[in-house]
């Protein structure tokens, strides 16, 4: 996929989001959780864009920004050529018709008092212009598409297993044929044996409808398999960004290498050497000065805690923010 020739579907330019923290006492200085700091990225039509990182690194905030659900403090977001960040709420509503989300937990994202038909037809009812018979037909077709049967239409979410509930979530997201779909950890609440089914389904649907996915996950092995390009985030900053194959072949940032080291494998004959990452993610209220990753980084240098490393180009469509590669910036 040569990404540079095409116009990106979604473009973020230096986006930052901070959430104010409740004050402990009235005259305390205002504190902020810096959820996303200075993120720029481009997502091309038809591709799957992976977002990887530990909890609290800003993955979901980033996704909410791309949906126009989260006001940004600075920076601009363009979707399909229009500037999302400058839209009124009415225009946003219009634009969101071509965007949808699949949530992490299918057990809480489906209203237990809605039947499957009510759940899946809700986007149609909001859009308007469908008769009841048309809706029944569309929903039935959609159900077959995601591997359920038409007869499931009048059952309730509690009758289904976790994997089937996630299929209902997918059907609901796809009923309006969106251009852009955010998958927010679509399989992490499910059994490993169901992961494969759901991921295969998502890939089949993408091929059929040419949807662009933003795929959030903390499992690098899954992201590697499903996505074309990806970003590795840590405490709201981009650590590494670019083509997935290039990132995995030649991981440039120590954090990416650490994430790869913590994956478990099932090849008993060739156990990979696993490097453990020490410590936990520090608080995003007071992130460490300089590079956010210093303190946990196995390859820390004295300059790391002094200033933030810039995002430098490692190769074509592969960028990393680390002083190990700072020499490339001057080239």
């Amino acid at each position, binding site marked *: 996929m040569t990404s540079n020739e095409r116009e990106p579907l979604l473009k973020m330019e230096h986006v930052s989001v901070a959430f104010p923290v409740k004050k402990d006492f009235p005259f305390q200085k205002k504190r902020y959780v810096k959820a996303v700091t200075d993120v720029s990225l481009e997502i091309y039509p038809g591709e799957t864009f992976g977002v990887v990182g*530990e909890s609290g690194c800003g993955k979901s905030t980033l996704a909410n920004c791309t949906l126009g659900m989260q006001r940004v403090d600075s920076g601009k977001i363009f979707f399909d050529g229009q500037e999302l960040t400058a839209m009124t709420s009415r225009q946003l509503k219009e634009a969101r018709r071509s965007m949808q989300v699949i949530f992490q937990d299918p057990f809480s994202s489906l209203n237990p008092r809605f039947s499957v038909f009510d759940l899946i037809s809700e986007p149609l009812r909001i859009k308007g212009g469908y008769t009841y018979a048309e809706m029944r037909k569309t929903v039935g077709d959609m159900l077959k598409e995601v591997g359920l049967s038409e007869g499931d239409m009048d059952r309730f979410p509690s009758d289904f297993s976790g994997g089937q509930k996630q299929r209902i979530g997918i059907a609901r997201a796809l009923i309006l044929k969106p251009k852009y779909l955010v998958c927010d950890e679509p399989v992490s609440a499910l*059994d490993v*044996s169901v992961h*494969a*089914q759901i991921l*295969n389904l998502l890939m089949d649907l993408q091929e059929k409808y040419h949807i662009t996915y933003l795929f959030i996950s903390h499992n690098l092995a899954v992201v590697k*398999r499903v996505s074309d390009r990806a970003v590795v985030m840590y405490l709201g900053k981009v650590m590494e960004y670019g083509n997935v194959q290039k990132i995995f072949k030649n991981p440039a940032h120590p954090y990416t290498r650490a*994430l790869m080291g913590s994956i*478990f494998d099932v090849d008993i004959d060739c156990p990979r050497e696993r490097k453990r990452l020490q410590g*936990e993610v520090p608080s995003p209220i007071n992130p460490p000065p300089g590079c956010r990753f210093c303190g946990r980084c196995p390859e820390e240098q004295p300059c790391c805690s002094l200033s933030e490393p810039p995002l430098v180009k490692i190769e074509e469509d592969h960028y990393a923010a680390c002083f190990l590669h700072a020499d490339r910036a001057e080239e």
Partner: protein
Amino acid sequence: MKALEVENLKVIFPTEAGIVRAVEGIDIEIDEGECVAIVGESGCGKSVTSLAVMKLLSSPPAITRVDKLVLGGIDIKDLTDKQMQKVRGKDVAMIFQDALTALNPVMTVGRQIDEIFLAHGKEHFSDETGKALSRFARKKEAKRRTIEALKLVGISDAELRYKAYPHQLSGGMRQRVLIAMAFACNPHLIIADEPTTALDVTIQAQVLDILKELQRKQKTSLMLITHDLSIVMNMADKIYVMYCGKIVECARTRELFKNPLHPYTHGLLGSVARINDDRKRFVQIPSSLPSPMHKPSGCYFHPRCVHATERCKQEMPPLEQLEGGRCVRCWNYKEIRYDKQ
């Protein structure tokens, strides 16, 4: 001596809609100092098994039948609830999946661990002359041991964390606190029910390392319950694979990963996402777990099995014993050849 011997454990739940046979006659043996994993999808009865071993299933609704239940040499089959309270925590301990619900939110974590020492270790609380300590001195001693236990699981500033409430700790820390609680009285057996499912990959690796290290150091037996085969490879010595309340395969870890005999085990292994695998599609087990109320006839796995024959639809295969303590419940395991994954 075996750390745990279970023979023919059966658990049923009579409900209005019908009888749910959660566990249908399973045998488990765990040697001293061994780590045994029970693997299966949700709803296969693995958590019910662990609760039954702890005798934590309340009856009603559950009805439990077991021929033999021996824990570290003590026969706990006929123990009453009162007597079981003495065993739990001291001889057998449990680590639950969700640390936030397992811990008491209105008590500091330090005091929660103190409780275990105070409830069980009365005989340990004596001075050099063998005289029992006063209540105050016992509390002080318990605090000392708690801080020691917290340090053991790699919590920094243990003195400070002693006074922390569960919500002030991160997910990984809370799971460490639970591990510290389980190892507190040095039990024969620790049951870990999906100990890392709620955690991030990096923290999951850390927590499992600590669990493994402590288990080796203290020579405790560990029963690890999980749905993810990838985490047990480096942890377990022996693996039981459960499906619909029955054990379908049991083998030493190395053999199971090298040469899975049951088609279900093969499917589970295939569905793990691997990093050095470049195929685009994921290998999947078709369809989903049958309803526990309407299990299929014959082999429970036959509707999802690509190798199913006429015989599989009629008769339930027996759990066949093979050499090396291996067993498998399949009619055709000899004929099936799997492609190398």
